């Protein structure tokens, strides 16, 4: 066969190809490309929306995390403050108690000293009286036993009392 036949387009195939191809374009446009491209577009839209929603969710989660961290930090600071205050209060109470106790002790001691002093004074006075009585009894006995003259006896007693001064 003539090789030129290969590059000679036949009218029949030209006709049928034109008809078939044109029909194919219009049929596929309606029944294939439109549904396929619409579905793909719809799907890519929904994927885009889903990605955006995920991004938003992530952003709000980040925001929540930041807020949580802030609250945590604040509560930690609060706790520290409270602990410090409690410590201060404790120290205050202890030092107050100590001061009060010291005051009490001092008062008790002072009172005790006063009492002791008073008691001592009372005892001394008592002792003095006892001594005076004793002295008088001694003097009486001496007077009775040894002295004849009342005046002499009295002078003697006075000088003896002075000598027995215990203070």
């Amino acid at each position: 066969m003539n090789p030129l036949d290969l590059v000679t387009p036949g009218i029949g195939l030209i006709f049928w190809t034109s008809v078939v191809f044109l029909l194919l374009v219009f049929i596929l446009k309606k029944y294939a490309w439109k549904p396929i491209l619409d579905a793909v577009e719809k799907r890519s839209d929904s994927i885009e929306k889903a990605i955006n929603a995920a991004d938003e969710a992530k952003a709000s989660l980040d925001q929540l995390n930041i807020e949580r961290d802030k609250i945590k930090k604040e509560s930690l600071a609060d706790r520290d403050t409270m602990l410090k205050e409690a410590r201060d209060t404790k120290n205050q109470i202890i030092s107050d108690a100590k001061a009060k106790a010291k005051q009490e002790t001092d008062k008790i001691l002072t009172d005790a000293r006063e009492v002791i002093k008073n008691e001592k004074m009372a005892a001394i006075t008592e002792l003095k009286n006892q001594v005076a009585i004793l002295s008088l009894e001694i003097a009486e006995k001496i007077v009775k036993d040894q002295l004849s003259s009342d005046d002499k006896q009295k002078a003697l007693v006075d000088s003896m009392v002075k000598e027995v001064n215990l203070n």
Partner: protein
Amino acid sequence: MERLHKAISISFFFLLSLGMFASNPDSHNKESSSTETNELYNPVPDVMHHISDAHDWHFFTFKGTHFSIPLPVILLTDGNLDVFMSSAFHHGHETVTKGDRVYEIDEHGHISEASGKTILNFSITKNVASMLLAVTLLFFILRKVAKAYRKNNGVPRGIQAFIEPLVLFVKDDVAKPNIGHNYKKYLPYLLTLFFFILINNLLGLLPGAANVTGNIALTLVLSVFTLIITNFSGNKNYWGHIFNPLGSSMGWGAKVPLYLILLPIEIVGIFIKPIALMIRLFANMTAGHIVILSLLSLIFMAQSGLGTGGAFGVAPVSVAFVLFMYLIELLVAFLQAYIFTLLTSLFIGLAIVEDH
């Protein structure tokens, strides 16, 4: 699943080779019986027969019996429409008489009228039949894919997962970057073009199939569609580039003599682009078929030159090369569909680009 795929692909290639083998011995027998000498087998007639159109769909001939599907012959002669089946010719042994018209067919499938009347041949030839089969298949595949989107929330499955990336590829990587924001208007044409060429390329690789996209009539039609769409889309800017390519860079006094040369070049350029498209697809597909058929013919050349032993010796090498070529042709099938679509969108893009 993996093993099934493997088994299918192996048997597929086995069938391919078988189909090619099966169709050749007949021609070889014919050749040697007609010459009655021990001449070397000439593959050219068989190869040409395989890549050409035909009036019946011939699969193979076994012991002198032709296994072929007859196809309708539609002839327009002097205003008379004559329709009959190609089997009426009995493989060229008989003529067909319709009214005063006597049709005869030669060994290359050319129908002529006995008294030399001009015939317009609108027959459903092997290529037309193959094309109809291809578009029917394509329609059902794409319809299935389109319907599948209503299920599974649009998650692609099965054939849908194969078609969708191709559709998105044409949309996002071919149409969008080359045409620009107006690309949606051209998508149905570009997608149809891509899948039409692809399925015809792929079906053409099957044994016994037609060489549809390797026929210049088909590529001519597709190129003409591209030519029409490109030029009808052309804006002021596009026509300005053709009829006033120098613009305001110089005065008319200087431009007129230059345009005597430039204008014919620009106008020829309008047609050169689709012509290049036409030849590229035609030549690539036809060349692929010729290479595969030639490699297989080596076996029969060895048989005629060296005997059966020679044929068995050459066969493994030949089949290995054919297998390799088939893989390349599979790539070319996708590549040529891609290039045709890419260049078409490029031409459209150039025609509708705004002044910058």
